[in-house]
């Protein structure tokens, strides 16, 4: 690992590429899976909840770099878990879906400043869209580990129930800890669904903008594309401090 106080690489310099083997594969659904990676040389791998690694994918014409958030917790050590979707026409995701247990893969990292390394001091809202729960999962675990943590809430939205990755885990956390609440929402809810319905922005506006005058909250938002910016703009534009609204857009 590099020394965080003496970073010597970057820019034009090439970093050390770690070699990892795939220890396990778990299919969340037909097009979403987790790969569990263990460093081939047996070394440790330290990271902060929310960080990502950059996989080096040897495609036919070049090595392409693609980032994947670490969905497991530093507290668990290895294997590291990354989640990925099979993207139609996506050369990188097709390559990764073609890998098997025992195959090797190279990566650099960890990277990223969308992190939470200790329990926040004020009420904190985590907002995740489908597979973008990956970086938020270890953040929540880190925050819950502090017995004095403030109220924490997770809004996790997906198109269908199978997109609510780690749902049982979050439900169990909410059962054990009265200061953590889990509010899943579905865009296409089945009959009998009792959770939230519709997209995240409506929930967020109702609960945290028009719902009360409290602007002393923190937000961690992760998702794909423009909706992440829409949420950022909604919150920053209605009285929340810029630095209180953290986000990562995939």
């Amino acid at each position, binding site marked *: 690992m590099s020394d*965080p106080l003496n970073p*010597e*690489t*970057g*820019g*034009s310099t090439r970093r050390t590429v770690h070699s990892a083997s795939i220890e396990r594969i778990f299919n969340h659904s037909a097009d979403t899976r987790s790969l569990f990676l263990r460093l081939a040389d047996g070394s440790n791998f330290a990271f902060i909840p929310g960080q*990502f690694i950059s996989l080096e994918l040897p495609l036919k014409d070049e090595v*392409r770099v693609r980032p994947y958030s670490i969905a497991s917790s530093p507290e668990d050590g290895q294997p590291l878990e990354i989640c990925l979707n099979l993207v139609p026409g996506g050369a990188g995701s097709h390559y990764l879906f073609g890998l098997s247990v025992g195959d090797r893969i190279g990566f650099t990292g960890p990277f990223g400043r969308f992190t939470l390394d200790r329990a926040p001091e004020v009420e904190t809202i985590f907002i995740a869209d489908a597979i973008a729960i990956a970086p938020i999962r270890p953040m929540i675990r880190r925050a819950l580990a502090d017995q004095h943590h403030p109220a924490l809430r997770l809004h996790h939205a997906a198109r269908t129930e199978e997109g609510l990755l780690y749902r049982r885990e979050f439900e169990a956390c909410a059962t054990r800890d009265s200061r953590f609440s889990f509010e899943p929402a579905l865009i296409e809810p089945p009959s009998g669904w009792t959770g939230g319905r519709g997209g995240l922005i409506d929930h967020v506006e109702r609960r945290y903008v028009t719902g009360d005058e409290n602007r002393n909250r923190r937000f961690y938002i992760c998702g794909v594309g423009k909706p992440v*910016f829409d949420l950022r703009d909604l919150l920053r534009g209605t009285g929340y401090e810029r630095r209180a609204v953290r986000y990562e*857009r995939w």
Partner: protein
Amino acid sequence: MARLRIIFESGEPERVIEFDPAKAPFSHDGQPGSILDVMLGHHVHLEHACGGNCACTTCHVVVKAGMDKLSGSEEAEDDLLDKAPGLTPTSRLGCQAVVESDDAEIVIVIPRFTINQISEQH
């Protein structure tokens, strides 16, 4: 033709790329026509840990000339740059700064280091 001169703080020999911005994209990563895209497409390495998706600062560059020939920065880029080491008033993310003029003369410096690779020990 636009011209991109690249100075490396690490001491590597500088490079000059001449290119036609209208022919972008030149690679698979970064905004089409961005400094990152131009460099990768001309086989000049610039780190881009997030794949050129404006999610880290490893492609941080300091623009020494031609700032007015680049696209303006958006809030997401500025939010990230706030955390970049060695931030200057002319810092940009290579993946987001698009060369907008076909006669642009851009000069950039690639900083030696980044703090994106940070860690904690357990």
